[in-house]
């Protein structure tokens, strides 16, 4: 493939396509952000703090974990613990950012570093799929950032005000939205990959690590998969 030879660019069509491609994520985003706002309210955050957390941290799983640790009397130790858990859960964002370098390395660094603030599982998935299909239009993930960010912050506010309307999301199969979406992202990539063994190793490592250190399974599995792909093809 001559994928890496072509120049990265940003087009209005790409921006539009990226916005549209967020729609399969909207149900999951809505339920998660609603729940987050409701929990923030229940844990005693002010409206501004709840919305501020979504606007500034903008990483759902880590926000939820921080809220689980929320207290009326923060200590520096508790703050360090919250930062540690956040780093563990969000370390996958480091790996996602790393995959962008060969693709968009030629773009204006100011634009790139600003856009990385908005990097999420969903926009990463949309961008990675575009790139895996031979695309080089960074407008696609950029466009995806817009509805995802506005939706996340807006629905957090709604959840804070609306309270616990969605008490048990698993009843509606919402707990499977993310794994099923990622399955549809994974399958075509695996189909094209030179071999499947790195992904089998990644899955196995993730399953084992999830039992021992739940915050780390995505990054542990991802690293094992990448590492085995690097080493296995040597033979």
């Amino acid at each position: 493939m001559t994928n890496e030879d072509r120049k990265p660019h940003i087009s209005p069509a790409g921006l539009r396509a990226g916005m549209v491609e967020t729609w399969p994520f909207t149900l999951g985003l809505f339920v998660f952000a609603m729940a987050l706002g409701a929990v923030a309210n229940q844990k005693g955050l002010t409206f501004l703090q709840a919305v501020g957390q979504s606007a500034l941290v903008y990483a759902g799983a880590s926000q939820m974990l921080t809220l689980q640790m929320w207290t009326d009397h923060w200590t520096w130790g508790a703050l360090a613990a919250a930062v540690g858990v956040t780093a563990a859960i969000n370390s996958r964002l480091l790996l996602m950012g790393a995959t962008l370098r060969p693709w968009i390395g030629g773009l204006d660094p100011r634009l790139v570093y600003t856009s990385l603030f908005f990097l999420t599982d969903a926009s990463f998935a949309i961008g990675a799929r575009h790139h895996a299909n031979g695309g080089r239009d960074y407008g696609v993930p950029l466009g995806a950032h817009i509805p995802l960010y506005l939706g996340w912050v807006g629905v957090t506010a709604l959840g804070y005000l609306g309270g616990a309307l969605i008490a048990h999301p698993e009843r509606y199969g919402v707990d499977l939205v993310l794994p099923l979406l990622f399955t549809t992202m994974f399958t075509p990539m695996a189909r094209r990959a030179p071999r499947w063994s790195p992904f089998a190793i990644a899955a196995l490592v993730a399953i084992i690590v999830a039992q021992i250190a739940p915050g780390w399974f995505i990054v542990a599995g991802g690293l094992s998969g990448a590492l085995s792909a690097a080493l296995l093809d040597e033979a």
Partner: protein
Amino acid sequence: MIDTAPGPWSVIFATALVTFLLRVSGYWLMARVPVTPRVKRALDALPASLFISTVAPIALKAGVAGVAATLAAAAVMFLAKREMPALATGFAVAAALRALGL
């Protein structure tokens, strides 16, 4: 000695900062790592590895319904190569199995 306790905003800003640093550092780092064929293979395998590493433990935790729904969605995706039928199949399998109490 620090004699003031941190407030809610300190927690929000500190977790926001560490998250932002993680978001930019992978990209930053890869400019300093030479992209040899081996590194290239690792980066190529990374997105799919991250996807499967997220899916596998969550599906297992969701029990029989979760695993069956995920496998069904993967099978439809593999054969039909279209997302909508794959997602619909996955949710239908999960709903059916959960209705049966699995």
